[in-house]
């Protein structure tokens, strides 16, 4: 594994779009070549080296390339977008779309991220030590094939619209979630270890949600069917089991209707 360290030394006036900052794009390139990759600030295309100090060369492949971002990347979007392998460590905050449409590899953000992170994710791991904004692990606008796989772990709180149209994969929130979790979901698992504000599992067809804390406004379309013991994220606990959204369509498998499951911790 070779490491490329990018240090944001010349912050943008407005913002930067950094979709080229991925192990896939850095692989096989040396320091100078990496510095010529494009960033965008609005209509202006700028070489990466104009904003970042680049140290180190990329590995032979994406899997052998690690990228470390230093400096305040709060205004840098799209880091790790569509990456397939390798590793990115962001030492502080980052902006929108971090790990968007990610297929493999690992991203670790030590600060906070903004909205649309892990959007359209297919595989890999996105770890955020701080908070995340809205649309975490959600699907892009109009796309009914949402998150398909991978793992997103946010230690802090998240905004609204987590996991909209989720189809697969796992999202684990350490803190609280704002309204709308797994709306229109058709698979996958979301775990909220704090409280959820409401609209948990609305219009949901299939899939699982775990809420450890309280749900301030539970939906009328979920109905409790029993208590179950389940192992979640390495610990076993007792949950109330609800099925829903009873207002939504549901597939029938082997003569039985399949519902989405909402487990609230007892």
């Amino acid at each position, binding site marked *: 594994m070779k490491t490329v360290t990018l240090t944001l030394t010349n912050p943008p006036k407005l913002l930067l779009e950094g979709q080229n900052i991925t192990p896939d794009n850095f692989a096989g390139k040396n320091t100078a070549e990496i510095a010529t990759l494009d960033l965008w600030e609005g209509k202006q295309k700028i070489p990466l080296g104009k904003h970042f100090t680049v140290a180190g060369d990329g590995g032979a492949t994406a899997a052998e390339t690690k990228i470390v971002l230093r400096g305040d990347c709060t205004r840098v979007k799209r880091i790790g977008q569509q990456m397939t392998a390798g590793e990115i460590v962001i030492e502080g905050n980052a902006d929108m779309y971090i790990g968007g449409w990610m297929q493999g590899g690992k991203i670790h953000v030590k600060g906070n991220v903004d909205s649309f992170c892990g959007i359209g994710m297919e595989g890999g791991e996105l770890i955020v030590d701080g908070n995340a904004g809205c649309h975490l692990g959600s699907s*892009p606008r*109009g796309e009914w094939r949402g998150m398909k796989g991978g793992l997103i772990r946010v230690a802090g709180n998240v905004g609204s619209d987590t996991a909209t149209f989720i189809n697969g994969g796992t999202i684990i929130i350490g803190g609280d979630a704002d309204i709308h979790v797994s709306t229109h979901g058709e698979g996958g698992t979301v775990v909220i270890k704090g409280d959820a504000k409401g609209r948990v599992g609305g219009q949901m067809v299939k899939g699982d949600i775990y809420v450890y804390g309280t749900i301030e406004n539970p939906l009328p379309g979920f109905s409790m069917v029993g208590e179950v013991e389940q192992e979640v994220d390495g610990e076993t606990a007792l949950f109330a089991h609800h099925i829903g959204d009873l207002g939504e369509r549901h597939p029938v498998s082997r003569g039985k209707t399949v519902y989405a499951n909402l487990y609230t911790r007892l």
Partner: protein
Amino acid sequence: MSELIIRNGFVFDPLQGIRGDRMDIGIKDGKIVETSTLSAPRTIDAAGMTVMAGGVDIHSHVVGPKVNVGRLFRPEDKLFKSPHKSPTCSRMEMGSSVPSTFKTGYDYARMGYVFVNEAAMPPLHSPHVHEEIRDTPIIDNAAMPVFGNNWFTLEYLKNNEIENNAAYTAWLLRATRGFGIKVVNPGGSEAWGWGLNCVHIHDPVPYFDIAPAEIVKGLIETNEFLGLPHSVHLHCNNLGNPGNYTDTLDSLRLAEGYAPKNDFGRKQVMHVTHLQFHAYGGDSWGNVGARSKDIMDYVNAHDNITVDMGQVTLDETTTMTADGPFEHHLRAQNNLKWANVDVELETAAGVVPYIYSPKVKANTIQWAVGLELALLAKDPMRIFLTTDHPNAGPFTRYPRVIAWLMSRAARDATMKTFKWLDRTIDATSIDGIDRELDLYEIAQMTRAGPARALGLTHMYGGLAPGMDADVAVYALNPGDMPSDPAAIENAFSRCALLVKDGVVTVRDGEVVTEPAKRTIWVDVKVPENTQVQRDIYEHFLRHYSVKLDNYSLFEEHLHNSRVIEVDTTQ
């Protein structure tokens, strides 16, 4: 104006019976001329290449409200799927299955097409249709208003008032600057106003007390009474359902006994569109099978009918049709987003995304059905290449459809990707068909035939002197056709040259200029009819939500008009 001569190409012009002769094509002032009349023409060398008239599309959904709903409600049809703007084009090109107006114009031109007939215009929305036509570069457009569920039409035909219906039809063609009579699921879309449908041609339309069969026959009579360039253009009842081929045969038989009456060289009284969707046997998706042979036996034996394919291309696409109940039915099958627009007194429409997959048996059978129709056709001047864009697939796949038609190897290669190959072969006859169409037959199916069916052979579809100078050159040598079908597809995707109205528009597959495009419409003069005038006044007073004076297209919203005049008063 400039003169051009396209030298030494292999020319295919079925309208003149020219089958790949090495010829020069002369162009002057936007028209084809005898080469002897040219004084100092610019020369374009087409040696070793195929020369045809510009392509003519008889049935495609490219402009208007439901197309635009398809664009609007599918951002995912653009994300990571749109090309970057070509530096030689003036505007961005967004979209995939439902391209923007700009991309539509550019892509048709790149394929060597010059005329596209918008298959369904809701009359109330005609200003919208014409706004989009304005923004669709290069290609000429016409648009057919829909009549099959129109309250005026239903009322007149119920009482067998053909003359009144003709007067109303003439009025509506002028009001909308429309081209011909489109019929979509006759009666069924009106029934959809109550959530119902007319599945068979003798199912009564709620309240109006008329059946689809009477609507279709009445409209054929109306069309021939008026002598329009194009015939009735029919989307049959019961689209897309297993077992529907009997309904289709019933619909086809409605044309029996009618002969074309027109001054435009049109030979048919009925054009049945996207036939692929109407040629299924069985009674469920479990046992659905191809009935292409039954359908084509009938079509081959009746030369007052033309048809187009509606070929499934096995892509993710967006279905859209004035057949409102069908789209409602489809959304219950795939559970995807569904848009619906019922239009007061006139029609309906629905839009649902759909993925045709080589892994789904129903889809691969549909693919086979479409190709069988074309390959079983005796007269390629009466069956035309379409994908019912974007319903069975985007029009940008025409080159691939051509490759399938021209090459058994191309068909075999595609069939290898089928998950249910054996079952598809069992349910169809595609595997038993070795026929490979030649370039002459392709020219029949993509220009000469559709131009004749549309009654436009005085302008489009051929290369005789006096016709529009719309010429497409493809990098294909008929004497040395590539063995790799992908090469055929590539050649038809990006023509080597397109001359539109005498202007070099595409060169080496890239759009190089954007000449003014035109709107083709039909203006029919009929005797004054006070009853129809009164009926129009009454319906607008009581039932429409817009004023009569604001309904007809204002002259300033018609762009680059090219009118075809028909006079029934003589």
